[in-house]
């Protein structure tokens, strides 16, 4: 079996609201899997279903080969989780918190101590291990929570928006730590995030959900390449506002604008860009540079999530 998570038409209703709607996807072993979606899309509910904390209304989920509904305890034995909140006991020290979870997972005392030291040293927190967590920054608490999730060397960890609420510096630091630890521990990561560049950087595979439904699934590269338009930037002399209606009339380009003196537009991926450059030159524009940008995951995400009427990607 090559997949660590297999869901089949997984569905969960809360009274009249369908939070998760017939989700079907697979996550292979060893992947950093990004589960993306706007607030209320059903990401946290999906994690709860996969951990066996909630029962599905319909469909099935198998995690590490165990049925989430009937074998939730087996799943929780072999996974680690950093959920919506760090979930740390703030009256206690980092050492006490990790020691508690080490005991929970039946790590022998010697192994527990060395593992806690290894993780806290890696995260640069070993010197402060005896301090109560109440006075720590959110970034430091998140690091301890990640250490807790990895403590018992699980095969799979669930991280629910681990960088949410962190300042940019702390977020980058945490992301780097996470990438290094995931690589070193050879653990499969199920990551939900709002941060698209984070997903692009860390994830080998992503799924995008909207209103509980899967709207895209594949590698970030594949999803980007499926985007119909590419973003083009044209630099030069004579770029004026009057070009915009002309672009619409002659080339059907509706999404265009002048930004800091250069022209930015959405160009259909199936058309030759040279025809546009030639026409611009003929109109007296002194074209100096043309940049073709690949669509970012963020643009793909916005296409799918903000403009819901567009065709879904099925990579």
């Amino acid at each position, binding site marked *: 079996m090559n997949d660590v998570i297999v869901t089949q038409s997984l569905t969960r209703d809360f009274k009249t609201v369908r939070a998760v709607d017939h989700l079907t996807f697979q996550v292979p072993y060893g992947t950093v899997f990004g589960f993306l979606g706007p607030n209320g899309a059903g990401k946290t509910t999906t994690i*709860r279903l996969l*951990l066996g*904390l*909630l*029962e599905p209304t319909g469909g099935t989920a198998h995690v590490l080969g165990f049925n989430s509904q009937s074998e*939730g*305890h087996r799943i*929780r*034995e072999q996974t680690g*989780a*950093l*959920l*919506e*909140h*760090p*979930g*740390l*006991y*703030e*009256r*206690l020290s980092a050492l*006490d918190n990790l020691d*508690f*979870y080490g*005991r*929970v*997972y*039946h790590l022998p005392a010697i192994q527990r101590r060395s593992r806690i030291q290894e993780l806290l040293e890696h995260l640069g927190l070993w010197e402060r291990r005896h301090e*109560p967590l109440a006075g720590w920054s959110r970034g430091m608490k998140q690091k301890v*929570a990640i250490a*807790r999730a990895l403590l018992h060397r699980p095969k799979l960890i*669930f991280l629910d928006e681990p960088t949410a609420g962190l300042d940019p510096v702390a977020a980058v630091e945490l992301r780097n730590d996470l990438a290094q630890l995931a690589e070193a521990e050879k653990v499969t990561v199920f990551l939900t995030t709002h941060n698209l560049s984070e997903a692009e950087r860390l994830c080998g595979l992503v799924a995008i959900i909207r209103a509980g439904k899967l709207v895209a699934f594949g590698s970030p590269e594949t999803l980007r390449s499926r985007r119909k338009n590419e973003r083009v930037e044209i630099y030069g002399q004579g770029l004026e506002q009057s070009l915009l209606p002309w672009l619409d009339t002659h080339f059907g380009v509706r999404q265009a604008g002048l930004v800091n003196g250069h022209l930015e537009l959405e160009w259909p991926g199936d058309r030759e860009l040279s025809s546009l450059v030639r026409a611009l030159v003929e109109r007296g524009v002194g074209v100096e540079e043309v940049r073709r940008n690949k669509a970012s995951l963020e643009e793909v995400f916005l296409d799918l999530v903000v403009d819901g009427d567009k065709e879904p990607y099925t990579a």
Partner: protein
Amino acid sequence: MIQDIVTVFIKEFKEILQMRGTKRSGWINILVVIGVMGVYMPLMSGREWVTNLLNPISFAWLPFFLVIGVVADSFAGERERHTLETLLASRLPDASILLGKIAAGVVYSLGIGITSLLIGGVVANLGSLEEGFVYYPLDFLGILWALSLLLALLMASLGTLVSLRASSVRQASQTLSLSMLVFWVGIFLVTRFLPEEARVLLSGFFTPERLPMFVAMVVLGLVVADAVLISVAMLRFKRSRLILD
């Protein structure tokens, strides 16, 4: 199972000790209670503290009251501080979480009660050592500890049950305090307005010869009540409900 209960118990106990900020303030709090109940009061009573057993009998209630302050925090506190979901997402079985939390509250309150009682027995002699050392009868101590344990367990189970559903520690504390108020007002009203014939009947029943039978009935009643409350708490412990609450 036992290992998991002990794991939860150790964590809970550490948290109880640091409830007031630091371990030191937690220990000071304990020492203040022991100072009042185990030193000051026996010192004031003198030898009568050990000879008139009605005084230390009130100690059976001490753990009962002390446990309220800690069990209200058990689940409602975890929910309030956003640690409950992570705990539930761990491998710990339901029963271990529940029993570990109950055990921590009982041991904490019973520990203070028993320590105060034992110290009090010694302190009560300090003013009259020349008359010889007297201590509580052993059978009395045994019964008192059993009653203390069962009463603390009763309150811990009830408190945990309330804390399971309460949205905040304050709500749990208020519910428990209110139920205590109703309980004591109820007892007061019953004793105050009991008809004279019933009083005579009861006083005829509570004779020294019948005391062992009466104690046995109370112990049995408490055992049953404890078992029922713990069973109800186990039944109401549903991970999905706890998360969605």
